[in-house]
């Protein structure tokens, strides 16, 4: 790739841009009442196109009864750097965990 061509494909910060269609995240529902789960992503030009591509890539063998597609850039994600402040479970603070209650018989324990 020549420098000129490369420049066309590079964003301002020098990272190689994805020159495909925009990215959509796909969520499939495996059965009625089940939650939609992230299945993967597809490239598409618009919502209908994304739905069709999602159907063809992730639901063609009867894996789903419902599909969601969401523009990838509409998803706000936590950054890896947030992992500590966000997710450190605080296991040393036993009072944060509800294990001091007796679970009544007949209640399903997960």
């Amino acid at each position: 790739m020549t420098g000129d061509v490369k420049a066309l494909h590079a964003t301002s910060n020098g990272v190689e841009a994805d020159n495909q269609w925009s990215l959509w995240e796909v969520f499939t529902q495996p059965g009625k009442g089940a939650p939609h789960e992230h299945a993967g992503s597809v490239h598409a030009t618009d919502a209908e196109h994304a739905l069709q591509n999602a159907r063809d890539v992730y639901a063609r063998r009867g894996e789903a009864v419902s599909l969601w597609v969401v523009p990838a850039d509409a998803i706000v994600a936590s950054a890896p750097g947030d992992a500590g402040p966000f997710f450190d479970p605080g296991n040393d603070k036993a009072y944060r965990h509800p294990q001091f209650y007796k679970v009544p018989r007949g209640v399903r324990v997960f």
Partner: protein
Amino acid sequence: MTTHDDNDTPIITSGAATLSVAGVRGPVFAAPLVEYLLRLGDDRLVLGHRLSEWCGHGPILEEDIALSNMALDLVGQANMFLGLAGEVEGAGRDADALAYFREGVQYRNALLVELPRGDFGFTIMRQFLFDAYSVLFLDALAGCGHAGVAALAAKSLKEDKYHLRHSSEWVVRLGDGTNESRTRAQRSLDGLWRYTGELFEYDVIDEAVATEGVVVDRAALFSRWDSMVREVLQRATLDIPKGVVMASGGRRGRHTEYLGHLLTVMQSVARAHPGATW
């Protein structure tokens, strides 16, 4: 475009040229219902094979998978219709025997489906013209008085509705897209239009199977197809060709030169290893 231009009129490859429409049920033709089922099966087998040629060559991964899915759907439908054709014929031929051990002149598909795949625009335009026909045709057939045929039509209809949704979306996108995509879509439409008339032909086979409950009103079918196709092509900003003389012959075994090449590839493994299972 690597397909065809206005000079390649269908080449008559069989000796059946002397058959008039009135004489269409000469000795080379099977029982009417068998002929009818072969038409249904062969359309789908040949188009399915053309679509399968895109496997690994699609413009993007998602579309590669979509085209292969549609190919598998159509080959599956062909398997059902040819299977029933073999049963009705009662000569011990199953779907495989009919698919792999008939010659071109014995194939009954419309010329539209055997044309080379061309570029993506051509493949999509052909698919759209066929899907619109197939959805309306199968919808009518699903309500016909022959239980076996109606059941297969209903099963295929679900798949073809999705195909139509996919291909019509693409036609609009390509037609109402860039200059390049519009030019290619229009060129494809211009080249394909004269192969659409054959889909609505009504002949002695249709007449004969009506006595067995298989009745589809082709005139009504055409008017529904015409308005459906026009609506989508209008949204795609494409011009419908005018004054086109329609090509014909596939239903009587008179095919373009392309079918022979397709069958050579499609049948090669089955003929090299007859009866092989895997």
